[in-house]
């Protein structure tokens, strides 16, 4: 029996529950959503003022409050964009790799062209067409990132479709749908999970770049990426402004990576990684 409660699983679960739980409870914990400014306590260092446990930023906003509230945007952007891109990319990669032929060539050439476009150019174009907003950012990231998943999955499928167990499934007449989702996909999951968890972190930071360029959400709404960008000018005098949202991102990503590793191993009957 593969261990359900391994260290990775427990550690990942604890980290994500802590961060995610705080974020989920933010409307009750901080009903004014991190926009209150306390001008008398600007740039308070952490652990000195009981009202601002993690300190304040140059506008006197509470760091703890903003980290917890800002998590909402970052979670939504990070997780939904990765989920969406994985789903879209995987389906396209599976179909292209399995059926080959014209659509495979067409989609992969299209993917090459898209990979050659700088992301910011793509972002400006897409946002100019569909307009800014939280959901638009997620859509933009899915559009920009499905390509890497599609290429990754397609590469696995190309070798897996020649595997004898896939040939065997064809030989006894199993329909393509069951071969693709029952035999090929489970064997192509390993690298996919790893790439997806790494991308969550990237996308949390990407959101702040987009917001910085005015392509994202309302700049006053707190988000982790936005807080990192705001704190950049104060990194030597007031490092806590960047440290705490940075830690939040780190814990989230670490938790996801641990869970991803665990999931990959859990799905692998050999019980250990063979990468």
């Amino acid at each position: 029996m593969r261990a359900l409660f391994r260290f990775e699983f427990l550690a990942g679960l604890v980290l994500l529950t802590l961060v995610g739980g705080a974020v989920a409870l933010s409307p009750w914990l901080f009903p004014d959503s991190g926009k209150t400014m306390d001008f008398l306590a600007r740039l308070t260092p952490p652990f000195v003022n009981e009202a601002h446990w993690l300190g304040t930023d140059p506008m006197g906003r509470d760091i703890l409050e903003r980290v917890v509230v800002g998590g909402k945007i970052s979670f939504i952007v990070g997780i939904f964009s990765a989920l969406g891109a994985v789903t879209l990319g995987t389906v396209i990669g599976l179909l292209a790799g399995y059926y080959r032929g014209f659509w495979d060539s067409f989609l992969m050439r299209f993917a090459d062209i898209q990979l050659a476009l700088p992301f910011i150019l793509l972002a400006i174009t897409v946002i100019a067409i569909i307009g800014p907003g939280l959901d638009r950012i997620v859509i933009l990231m899915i559009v920009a990132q499905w390509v890497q998943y599609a290429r990754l999955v397609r590469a696995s499928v190309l070798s897996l479709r020649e595997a004898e167990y896939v040939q065997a499934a064809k030989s006894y007449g199993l329909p393509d749908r069951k071969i693709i989702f029952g035999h090929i996909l489970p064997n192509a999951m390993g690298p996919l999970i790893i790439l997806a968890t790494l991308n969550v972190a990237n996308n949390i930071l990407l959101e702040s770049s987009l917001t910085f360029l005015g392509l994202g959400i309302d700049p006053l709404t707190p988000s982790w990426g936005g807080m990192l960008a705001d704190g950049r000018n104060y990194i030597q005098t007031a490092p806590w402004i960047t440290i705490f949202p940075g830690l939040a991102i780190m814990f989230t990503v670490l938790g996801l990576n641990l869970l991803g590793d665990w999931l990959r191993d859990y799905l692998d009957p050999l019980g250990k990684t063979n990468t």
Partner: protein
Amino acid sequence: MTSLLTPILDVRNLTLAFGKMPVVNDLSFTVNQGETLAIVGESGSGKSMTSLAIMGLLPHIGGRVDSGSIEFKDEGKIHELTSLSDDDFRRIRGNDIAMIFQEPMTSLNPVFSIGSQITEALELHRGLKGAEAENEAARLLDLVRLPNAKAQLKRYPHQLSGGMRQRVMIAMAASCNPKLLIADEPTTALDVTIQAQVLQIIRDMQSELNTAVIFISHDMGVVAEMADDIIVMKRGDMIESNSAQEIILRPGTDYTRQLMAAVPKIGAMTGKSAPEKFDLIGQSEQAGSSGKPETAQQAEPTSKPDNKPFDNDDSPLVSLKKVTTHYPIRSGFWGKVRHRVHAAESISFDIYAGETVALVGESGSGKSTVGKTLQQLVTPAGGEILFRGQEMLSAPPEVRDRFKREIQYVFQDPYGSLNPRKTIKASLLEPMYHHGLVSDPARQVAELLESVQLPAEFASRYPHEFSGGQRQRICIARALACKPQLIIADEAVSALDVSVQAQVVNLLMDLQKERGLSYLFISHDMAVVERISHRVAVMYLGQIVEMGTRQQIFENPQHPYTQRLLSAVPMMDPLRKPQRPILDVEIPSPIRAIENPPLIHTYREINIGHIVAENLVLF
């Protein structure tokens, strides 16, 4: 007699281990100059570990020498290999002791030309430079009988066939005139005719350079052809050691007898018209822990005295008529088809109920393509296939799906043909669910496993927990799950150790008798084919060159290619070491330009049911 010989390698009380697991216990032997010592045993017997220990490569894969000594004697100097420093070892390795590996496909570096890989060894070990090194490299390729040696130097590994690559490996091993050559299963991955060539080359080289050879193999047939002395190993222990002649004529242990009995001997079936099971003595690898041994039963004379399990008056189960399958090769920007692989060309034969038809030939002869076409895994370019009188290719989808139930395929690689992420139960049930044959899953799975002599508890396990032989039984069980009428066994026993191979062949024959199955048995191994088949078709370059009953093919082969295949099979006769002429002909490529189709054979019937291609020239 031994006093005249110069010992070159002296292994004493050698014990090797991986972590806490001992892999070789207390092994002692001596190798003399110019002699061949063979180490024989099944997978896991420790034979390869021994060779790696001699090469000093054991620590690389995580093993170690626990005790004992390996003394290498070089012109009066004695090197103790177990305690040699890495630097000193590097001078001996490649220089005095060289090695040939099993897998010629991966033991050459694909990004360097053959020439640069050989000259690299020459520069390193013999200090040759430039043109001098190149000439020497060409001479070495001549030594291994590679035609047109100078031109070969510029070629890259992917441009050479497996047999040619193995010859390059031998040339590299010979480049420094080693005193000792270790050949670890050097021919296991090769076709029989190529195997015969490679063995002959090793023998020639040995007599020219007076090299000592340690020859490692699981195949008693090959060993008998090569060895002066034989060591038999089983699970890390040496269980017998003697001269080759003694061991083969008078084996001292049951295990050796089992190993030898399991080697299919060509000619063993002469005069018999029906297939016959292997006569296995004792049991070597348990089929499982089922306690239902399948051996120890003497080969019972076929119960039916009539040697035809089929009657020619009946209509055949399957009938192939001029089936032709091509694989297009696209090239250029628009992917235009300019060349085609003529994998199967105008193939016609019938399979009757309860009959085994064997399709033999070497790699690339198109025999698998015929099987895959019949299984509807590839679409033929022409011809027709009748299954119980019904045309298969034009049949509606539901009929074609039914044919996929009634015809089942067993693949070669027991490690690749089961999905590693599915339990055995899930793998067995999948085709049954698809064809609506499931009524009581647990009981049906248990029955299937029992029919291939595996215990029912295996159902909940995963493929990686089983040995190759067990996995192949599971694949056979999966084929049986659909209650087929025809099973296509595509090299189904080729990847197994000989003793396991014999058991699986016997299992197939038992199942045929119980269920009246027909087999299309695709194989390159003439000796196994002689055991199992009623009729045999020999394929060469995508076409059948000869077809007839087993007796007609084996006792009266007419086509030169059939004769060549038969003569290449190793004979287990220590008194007669065959000196075969080296045939430098590699099988030509079946890739042809689209405007240049191959010549289609016409046949003449030389006896009832025995047809031979009119064109006797191998091209």
